[in-house]
């Protein structure tokens, strides 16, 4: 009997590792090696040349970085912005060019102008003619684009993930215990949830499922950790995953229309500040940070939802960026968020916001000076924080020395590293570790729990899954319709990668221990919900043909309300 169990354990371990590698490899291959082709929305005719308009927001100018490059004398490096609004109307704005812009011979004012098929655009003497696409032509071009999922079948990847989850469940079954029926139920629910998502996407004629697959892969590891550390809370965790997916779909649907998105940005900013204010006033302190709010038995972390709002507010469309050339309000908003988090004592999350701010402000401005300035400021603030907050100072003091004080300051990390090493490359099997009994193991040290139970290889796959999402954000940004989606997707991945880095390197004693969560894997409601919502931003940047439910299919009929249709 013992031999049977140990043999099944060895079998399931090898299957899990092979499937992990396969799933990550397939998603990576699908996300990175598929053809990304620009969408064509209209043309600008320059003499005999036909310049395609490939985004909803296009920079026109002499610069190499311009989307529509007009390399003529008297055309400024960045001259004008051509945008398409949600109703399918095109507008042009002069962005402080020296030569000026004339439409059909009329000088363009500061508010820009709507242009139509056949209009003549004069950029400081260079004449272009705007040609909108006819519905037929537009459809024809759209049909030619390669659709997502044709190279690596998302169905196959999801099937592999399902087998992965079944073997994970099998490992829990080998350990046994009174909670096994509940664990089985929750794994069943997860399977049902992911196949429901997949079928819904197919019904909507969407074929990109890599982002969801990676998120579900991480979720199943998270579920496994929860099943071994707090089986009595597992059902709640499962419900939260369902809620997370629901929020993912809802956020994605909301993001479909840029007009809708931009209309409530101010409201979102106020909501973010409000949440933080409520947090500062009403929160209770847990483990040195006051980042929890309790409502009649339910507690949640407002900062996790502020993350989503921060991205929502921080991303911006191109025309806006060029028409108001400063980061001032964004910097103030960011500073307030980071300072509020520091006041709350949640320095890990403050750091996550800060890195996200750096990435987004660099995306928005391209100014390294701004980034350096912000870094200097933050460095000084950090020194201040360390000197004021004793528990932060202690974490810095024990950083790199956890083995010298394994019963004091290094208590958690020394145990985490020991358990992680005790797991070896293949792990001890789900539920068979001991680290889960240490405080906060399934949140702050979840990487070590996965190392111990599933082995180093799967733990590394887990990090690789996050990196795969980031690689995709970089790749997809180039083909986004609006800079809003690209900036939001990159900001989201900056957040998730920073969280990952702080989580794993804090556990490994390569960075001070900050106690942030590992995306999707750490146990916790608020963070799980916010991770799923961040995925919606990532989906918004996926413009491969028929890939994402957040991106509406190309429509050219004027009567139709553009991106509005749901």
């Amino acid at each position, binding site marked *: 009997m013992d031999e049977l169990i140990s043999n099944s354990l060895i079998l399931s371990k090898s299957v899990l590792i092979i499937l992990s590698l396969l799933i990550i490899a397939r998603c990576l291959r699908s996300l990175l090696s598929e053809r990304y082709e620009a969408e064509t929305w209209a043309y600008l005719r320059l003499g005999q040349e036909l310049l395609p308009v*490939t*985004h909803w927001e*296009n*920079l026109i100018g002499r*610069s190499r*970085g*311009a*989307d529509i490059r007009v390399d003529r004398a008297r055309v400024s490096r960045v001259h004008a912005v051509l945008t398409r609004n949600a109703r399918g109307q095109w507008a042009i704005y002069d962005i402080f060019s020296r030569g000026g812009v004339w439409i059909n011979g009329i000088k363009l004012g500061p508010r820009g102008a709507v242009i139509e098929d056949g209009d003549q655009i004069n950029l400081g003497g260079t004449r272009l003619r705007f040609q909108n696409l006819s519905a037929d032509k537009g459809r024809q071009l759209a049909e030619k684009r390669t659709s997502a999922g044709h190279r690596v079948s998302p169905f196959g990847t999801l099937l592999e993930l399902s087998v992965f989850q079944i073997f994970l469940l099998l490992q829990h079954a080998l350990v046994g215990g009174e909670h096994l029926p509940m664990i089985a139920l929750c794994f069943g629910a997860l399977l049902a949830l992911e196949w429901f998502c997949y079928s819904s996407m197919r019904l909507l004629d969407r074929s990109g499922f890599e982002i969801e697959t990676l998120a579900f892969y991480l979720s199943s590891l998270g579920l496994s950790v929860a099943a071994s550390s707090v089986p009595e809370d597992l059902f709640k965790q499962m419900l939260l995953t369902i809620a997370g997916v629901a929020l993912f779909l809802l956020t994605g649907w909301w993001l479909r229309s840029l007009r809708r998105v931009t209309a409530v940005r101010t409201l979102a900013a106020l909501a973010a500040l409000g949440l933080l204010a409520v947090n500062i006033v009403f929160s209770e302190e847990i483990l040195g940070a006051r980042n929890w709010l309790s409502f009649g038995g339910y507690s949640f972390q407002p900062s996790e939802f502020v993350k989503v709002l921060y991205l929502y507010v921080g991303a911006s469309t*191109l025309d806006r*960026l060029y028409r108001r050339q400063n980061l001032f309000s964004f910097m103030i908003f960011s500073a307030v968020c980071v300072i509020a988090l520091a006041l709350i004592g949640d320095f890990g999350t403050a750091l996550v916001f800060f*890195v996200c701010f*750096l*990435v987004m402000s*660099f*995306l*928005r401005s*391209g100014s390294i000076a701004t980034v350096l300035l912000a870094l200097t400021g933050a460095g000084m603030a950090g020194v201040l924080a360390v000197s004021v907050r004793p528990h932060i100072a202690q974490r810095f003091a024990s950083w790199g020395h956890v*083995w010298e004080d*394994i019963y004091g300051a290094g208590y958690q990390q*020394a*145990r985490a*590293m*020991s*358990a*992680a*090493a*005790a*797991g*070896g*490359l*293949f*792990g*001890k099997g789900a539920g068979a570790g*001991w680290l889960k009994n240490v405080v906060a193991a399934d949140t702050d040290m979840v990487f070590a729990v996965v190392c*111990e139970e599933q*082995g*180093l290889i799967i733990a*590394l796959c887990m*990090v690789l899954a996050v*990196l795969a999402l*980031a*690689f995709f*954000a*970089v790749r997809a940004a*180039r083909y*986004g319709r609006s*800079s809003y989606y*690209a*900036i939001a997707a*990159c900001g989201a*991945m*900056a957040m998730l*990668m*920073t969280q*990952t*880095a702080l989580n*794993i*390197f804090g556990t*490994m004693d*390569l960075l001070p221990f900050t106690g942030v969560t590992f995306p999707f894997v750490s146990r916790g409601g608020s963070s799980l919900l916010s991770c799923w919502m961040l995925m919606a931003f990532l989906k918004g940047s996926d413009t491969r043909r028929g890939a994402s439910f957040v991106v509406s299919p190309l429509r050219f009929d004027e009567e139709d309300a553009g991106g509005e249709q749901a």
Partner: protein
Amino acid sequence: MKKITNRAVTLLLIAALIIAGLALYTIRYVDEGRDWALAFSRANSGSTGELSDRNGVLLASFDAVDNRYAADAATRIACYHVTGDYWGRSGSGALTWFWDDMHNYSLLTGTTHSSAMELKLNIDASLCRTAYEALDGQKGAILLMNYRSGELLCMVSSPSIDPLDNSEPPEGAFINRALAASFTPGSIFKLITAATAIETVPNMDGRSFYCEGEYEIAGVPIVCVGPHYTQNFEQALANSCNVAFAQIAIKAGQEHMVEHLRAYGFLDKHTLDGIPTAAGSYPLDFVGDPELGWSGIGQSTDLVNPYAMLRFVAAVANDGVLAEPHLIAGESGPFTRLIAEDTARQLAGMMNYNVVAGYGEERFPGLRLCAKTGTAELGDGTSHAWFTGFLADEAHPYAFVVLVERGGGGLSVASPIANTLLQAAVR
């Protein structure tokens, strides 16, 4: 758009930092993972372990609740440098070096449970007690092994401690003198000079050496206990004649001396089942004849590690082939030729002649002993007492090294201790 989206590569910078961090972690994991894993494994894996000697005497045992050592204090003290302690204070203890053998750690599978890991040593705890008692509180080291099989039966270093005694330990108690230190060898070094000469100087047996009690080389005197007058090679070793051996070393030449010392393993560090030992030393840069003479009789800057000496005499005893010593029972080999067979045989014969014609067999009743004494002058009036050799006895194939630090004469101080040890070993 392009201007903005090109900046998205900043994300790759973060990704690169994460990958670099993971690489660093993985390197540390491979390098130190064993230490990490075992730091808490005893408490957390519920594993139990036992360390015992060749006769099943318990040297240490542990489980999730407690750490234990041998039952009686004499064994705990005598075997301290074999056993070590749970805090790793001794540089050589089995608890330090074989911890993972008692826990089943490997990089692939991490720690694996096993109901009770047992580790048996070749050590004979009662022999260690005898040896430690024979040292009678003097500083020193004693080693005894089976030169046919390589089993290490006795390893003692003095001063030692009782790991259960919390009082202030004597100075140097945590150093295992048998492995981790090297000492001026004095006349036992003549065995090495002799072996080198047999292999490099033609017609050693036909030569004779004349000793007036003192001999000048380039104005520097070599002092001898003699005068020994005319003697052949064999008699010169039995007399331990400094005059003769200074001349022999010069005849062999520094190059040959160094070459052979290296071949016999005196200049290198070794490992005893993974436990590192100290290297010896010898003048490697060119020195003149006077210095070469002095170094040929084990003075000058010579240092010999007791464990290296044990390997050498064990090879001499085993016709030149060294059965690598092992502390862990069941380990065996490799068997390496250290010395040419003829050389080893001749040297063994000379070492027997030492006992028969020099020291007197009556000192070692019933033992067929081949040995060499050493009295290493330290220049301050004190000397290390050495006695090393082996039993030419198929039933008791034991090679040994006895060192008493600043103990006095090799024959008067070290040889009685060796006799006590050997009598106990053959019983």
